[in-house]
């Protein structure tokens, strides 16, 4: 393999590959095609996935700035960063709300999460508007104070009807205790898109730092002068920790709790309470996703409340019942408590102390049936079925875990098999590179757990003396099986990683080879151009013998005709020997005259 001059881009591509290997197997051919300018900022290579917010909205290639000339065109002009509203759309058309304006001027560490409040529609009467705005809109007063979002605010209606309101990360409710060191010293909530200052090493949310620097270009903690475009970098470790925090879905009424990393997926795709555009294309208000479904049409019409007779917007009915409905409460028939009317069902089902309920261990044999308050006491201490019930419940949970593991193992197996197949195809084509990778089958022993006894109460007829014994035996069994599964998964994981490494090693080599070939080609071109220039010069000087003119192209370069050929070849030889002095190893043919071959 030739070790020609290696293009800088390829060098960074290597490090890029090294970085990304651990995340996802990159689609290498596609990557080579796109990555004319790999994402290097201040000598650092950007990771593939910087933040989950962008993962869904921007496919991985969104992280590559386009090749140089268009690059400048798509970036906001450096001194007016605020103006660059819908830029990255040039690479990947992003929905309106995820348009990647870049925070902090020339920094494209993070695409800016949309900050503009949703369009306010002046037509709704005051009562309803305040209600819905409390639920959905960030305080508009703040946005008006900021020129940045003004342009977007002014567009009253949103052209993209599938856009969603951005998640306000500073308003999230965290379920886990958040370490103080993960809190932004400005907003005092866990960092969102953390940026660290280079000179003094302080970390802030991108939006907080951005605003602070807008007011004065100093570190908000120690007032070190900062240049927004140069002096910040992102913080990977912090990101990882933040991704794992458990948060509650920000939508009113939704109880979903998940790792913060996964929140955007839930919010954007699944949550029934996410406010989406009204199904009526002429209406600019929003409704909960669940309400937008079906043929209910626009819910922003008015209806009369069945309890108090007020005019209320259909979409805001729930809220009206909860908040300001005059006749919204009623007495519970069992306990005489005052309850919000449309919550009565929930009250009797969950809270009312007088409603008759069964003991929660009923499935395991308890026959208690009494008012809730009595049953609660019973459940807490008196119920004899409690022990067995707990065991059975734990066992059910274990079973669920096992099933999940099983699924994961089989998914892995599937993946392995696929790459196996690919590998086989490839080695058939390209003459087997890697022998000796064992087939998938040996790692996959019998995974069928279904033969284990399923119904808990079978201990009666079994060999166990007591339910406890039976449960204990079950536990031991399950534990050992889980251990087996764990081992298997780890083994699979190891093999998988090895396989990936092997695959990419070959690709890396190929890329290096390509790189050197490109280098050699470049030299060919230079050489040919040199020769051409030379011969033109000679012609202009009015040479004596040789055929004048056009025989200059590629062929002419290699074997020039006539008397001037000697001179030209002399020139070429000088060129190559001088470049060899510089240290470029070149192969020459035995006659030492031809340019290097590929």
């Amino acid at each position, binding site marked *: 393999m030739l070790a020609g001059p290696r293009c800088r881009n390829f060098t960074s591509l290597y490090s890029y590959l090294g970085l990304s290997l651990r995340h996802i197997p990159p689609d290498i051919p596609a990557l080579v095609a796109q990555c004319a300018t790999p994402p290097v900022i201040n000598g650092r290579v950007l990771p593939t996935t910087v933040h989950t917010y962008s993962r869904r909205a921007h496919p991985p290639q969104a992280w590559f700035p386009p090749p140089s000339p268009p690059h400048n065109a798509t970036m906001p002009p450096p001194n007016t960063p605020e103006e660059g509203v819908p830029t990255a759309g040039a690479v990947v058309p992003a929905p309106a709300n995820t348009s990647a304006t870049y925070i902090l001027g020339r920094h494209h560490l993070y695409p800016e999460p949309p*900050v503009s409040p949703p369009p306010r529609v002046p037509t709704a009467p005051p009562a309803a508007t305040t209600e819905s705005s409390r639920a959905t809109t*960030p*305080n508009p*007063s*703040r946005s008006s*104070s900021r020129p940045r979002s003004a342009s977007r605010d002014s567009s009253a209606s949103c052209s993209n009807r599938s856009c969603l309101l951005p998640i*306000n990360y*500073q*308003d999230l409710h965290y379920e886990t205790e958040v370490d103080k060191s993960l809190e932004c*010293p*400005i*907003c*005092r*909530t866990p960092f969102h898109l953390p940026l660290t200052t280079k000179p003094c090493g302080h970390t802030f949310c991108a*939006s*907080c730092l951005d*605003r*602070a620097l807008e*007011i004065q270009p100093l570190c*908000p*903690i*120690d*007032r070190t002068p900062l240049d927004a475009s140069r002096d910040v970098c992102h913080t990977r470790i912090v990101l990882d920790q933040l991704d794992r925090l458990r948060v509650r879905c920000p939508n009113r009424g939704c109880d979903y709790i998940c790792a913060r990393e996964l929140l955007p997926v839930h919010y954007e795709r699944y949550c029934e309470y996410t406010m989406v555009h009204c199904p009526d294309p002429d209406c600019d208000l929003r409704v909960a996703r669940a309400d937008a479904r079906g043929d209910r049409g626009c819910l922003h019409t008015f209806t009369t409340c069945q309890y108090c007779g007020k005019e209320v917007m259909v979409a805001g009915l729930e809220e009206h019942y909860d908040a300001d409905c005059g006749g919204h409460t009623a007495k519970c028939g069992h306990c005489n408590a005052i309850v919000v009317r449309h919550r009565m069902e929930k009250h009797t089902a969950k809270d009312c102390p007088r409603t008759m309920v069964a003991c929660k261990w009923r499935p395991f044999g308890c026959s208690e049936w009494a008012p809730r308050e009595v049953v609660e006491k019973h459940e807490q201490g008196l119920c004899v079925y409690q022990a067995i019930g707990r065991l059975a419940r734990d066992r059910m949970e274990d079973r669920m875990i096992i099933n999940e593991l099983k699924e994961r193992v089989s998914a892995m197996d599937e993946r392995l098999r696929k790459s196996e197949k690919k590998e086989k195809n490839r080695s058939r084509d390209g003459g087997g590179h890697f022998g000796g990778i064992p087939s998938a089958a040996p790692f996959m022993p019998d995974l069928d757990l279904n033969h284990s006894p399923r119904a808990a109460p079978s201990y009666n007829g079994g060999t166990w003396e007591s339910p406890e014994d039976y449960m204990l035996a079950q536990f031991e069994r399950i534990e050992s099986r889980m251990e087996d599964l764990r081992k298997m998964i780890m083994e699979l994981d190891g093999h998988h990683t090895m396989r990936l490494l092997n695959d990419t090693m070959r690709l890396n080599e190929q890329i290096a080879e390509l790189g050197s070939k490109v280098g050699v080609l470049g030299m060919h071109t230079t050489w040919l151009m040199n020769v051409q220039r030379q011969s033109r010069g000679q012609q202009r000087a009015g040479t004596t013998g040789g055929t004048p003119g056009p025989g200059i192209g590629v062929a002419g370069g290699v074997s020039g005709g006539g008397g001037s050929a000697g001179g030209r070849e002399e020139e070429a030889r000088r060129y190559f020997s001088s470049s060899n002095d510089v240290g470029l190893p070149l192969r020459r043919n035995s006659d030492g005259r031809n340019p290097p071959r590929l």
Partner: protein
Amino acid sequence: MASGSQKRLAKEYADCTKTPPTGMSIHLANESDLHKWHVTLEGPAGSVYAGGRFGLIITLPTDYPFKAPDVRFATRIYHPNVTNDNQGGICLGLLKSGNWKPSTRLLSVLEAIRGLLAEPQPDDPLEARIAHEYQNDRKEFEKNARSYVNHYAKGPVKFDVAPPNVNASGSSKDGAAPSR
């Protein structure tokens, strides 16, 4: 992100009410508005202000924490770093717009004000005359300060220092000082 700073405000308020600096009690001027705080501050023991109860009004701008809070005395006080009028403006390095750091906690602002009462900063005065007196005639300063305390800072603290009652509450500026 007004709601973001709302969260910060709530946290600041919780911090300050949970572990207030010695001799301070903090309330909201209006239950639903986190932007205006009423702080009652007891003169630090050992200082000339001991025994007095001073009202502080903290107004947090909508741009908080990017802009510094506005802190002023609601109770008149004879102090080199506090304007000797009904405005009660305070000169505190921490709060000057050129020095304000968005990461500064309100708890430390309160501590700083308490510190200012315990130890005035005559080198950076708002009332040059009082500062001069503090530096050159400490006895006279202490006498004046104590008489102010007795005159204004006894009894329940009032927070109504709106500009309209300037004339109603205080007599003419200099006449307000009981003994001079």
